[in-house]
């Protein structure tokens, strides 16, 4: 019963994770709170909005019990802004991820939601980055999967869906090219850490094999050079220690 999948999440598992994102719905029917393993759902009373996990929102949408409110970053204007950023302003890195979620405490202070006072740190898909309150102009981690699923199951809830669809395609192409150039660019070779700030989950999943393959190849080609370098560094370090101890002796 061992898992036959390769190391690293595959696209279907990423989609599964994305379905845990919270989205905002406008219910069309009353529904009492349901006690689930991941907590109770809010009581649905039309026309009050409520935040639900994405899988439940799709289920309600399919049964025509609710409409989904698309997040602000999925609006054509916001997408156009990001496409401009990706193609004209910064052609090397991805557009920055959304700012960390903050909330007001009602006394004029704003506090960062993460980390919580007891040290628990939430990360996507548990951060509210796809609800109606999410900011426009920045793509959250699960942007691609969420947009695709929304277009597939709730395209009538998205304003100008066909335009959104074509903008998403532009975005995806511009960003995929960045991923390729980033990994194959000579200057990033041989370094210990490479930052992929702003990348999305599905983009990672689809190029995971390629990226790790390149990294592995470079490591194996440079393995002997690396061992030599480390030995040299160690010797130099020892020499310095020797010099120091000599000085100590002199003193």
């Amino acid at each position: 019963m061992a898992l036959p999948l390769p190391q690293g999440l595959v696209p279907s598992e990423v989609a599964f994770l994305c379905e845990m994102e919270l989205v905002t719905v406008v219910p069309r029917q009353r529904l009492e709170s349901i006690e689930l393993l991941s907590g109770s759902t809010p009581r649905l009373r039309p026309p009050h909005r409520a935040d639900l996990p994405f899988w439940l929102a799709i289920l309600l949408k399919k049964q025509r019990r609710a409409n989904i409110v698309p997040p602000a970053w999925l609006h054509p204007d916001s997408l156009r802004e990001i496409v401009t950023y990706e193609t004209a302003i910064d052609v090397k890195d991805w557009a920055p991820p959304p700012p960390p979620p903050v909330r007001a405490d009602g006394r004029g202070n704003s506090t960062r939601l993460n980390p919580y006072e007891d040290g628990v740190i939430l990360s996507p898909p548990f951060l509210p980055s796809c609800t109606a309150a999410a900011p426009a102009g920045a793509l959250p981690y699960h942007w691609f999967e969420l947009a695709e699923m929304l277009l597939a199951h709730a395209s009538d809830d998205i304003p100008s869906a066909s335009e959104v669809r074509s903008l998403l395609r532009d975005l995806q192409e511009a960003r995929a090219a960045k991923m390729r150039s980033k990994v194959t660019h000579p200057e990033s070779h041989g370094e210990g850490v490479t930052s992929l700030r702003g990348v999305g989950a599905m983009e990672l999943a689809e190029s995971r094999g390629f990226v790790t393959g390149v990294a592995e190849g470079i490591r194996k080609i440079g393995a002997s050079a690396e061992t030599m370098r480390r030995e040299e560094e160690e010797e130099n370090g020892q020499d310095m220690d020797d010099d120091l101890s000599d000085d100590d002796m002199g003193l």
Partner: protein
Amino acid sequence: MDIDDILREVDPASHGIPLETRDLQALTRLWVAERSAPELLNWPADGLFERVNSKIKSQIEKIEDMTGDMDPKTNFALIVIQTELERYKFLVRSYLRARIAKIDKYTLHYLSTEELRQRLSPTELAYATRHQALLHNHYLSSFLSSFPQRLQNLNDTAGNVSMIDSPDLDTAVFIRLLRDKDVFGRGTDVDTILPAASGDILILRWSSAKDLVEHGDAELV
């Protein structure tokens, strides 16, 4: 729901995350980490799995109770509960299967030292030991017994070559930072220190990322 519940919902001072969300976040994080890491990670010691299993059990009992009455309203609630239960069970199952895949691949490695054995849960340890013994007995009875006595072991380390396969700890992994941190990574040409903010995705060797992940400063993605 009365006025107190509604007030509690909109109260800006209540920061706490409910235990259910916490468990789900912890379980998801464990699953993603186990799917992405090249080696077996520690079995969670805080009783998360006991808690999750007992919750799944009581949820199944609840479904059995609810199947009795056929009111269409509760019928829909039943569908939702069952869907969610399946999703939860998938997480648990996939996590355990990913661990078994790693244990199967490097059984002798994980059984070789006390420190590595600590990573396995009691059931996994029993499985690994017995499976390995069965396998070795099978080899012995089918072909190993015709070899000289000193060639019958599976953990030979003669000639500085160990027979025990171990996972490659320098495999590249992706991590997401949970706190702002300067990340140190070993590379072929230079070792780099990269200042990174929480939420950034980095690619580096697992051997460099391991400490960050174990201290909760980063998570695998």
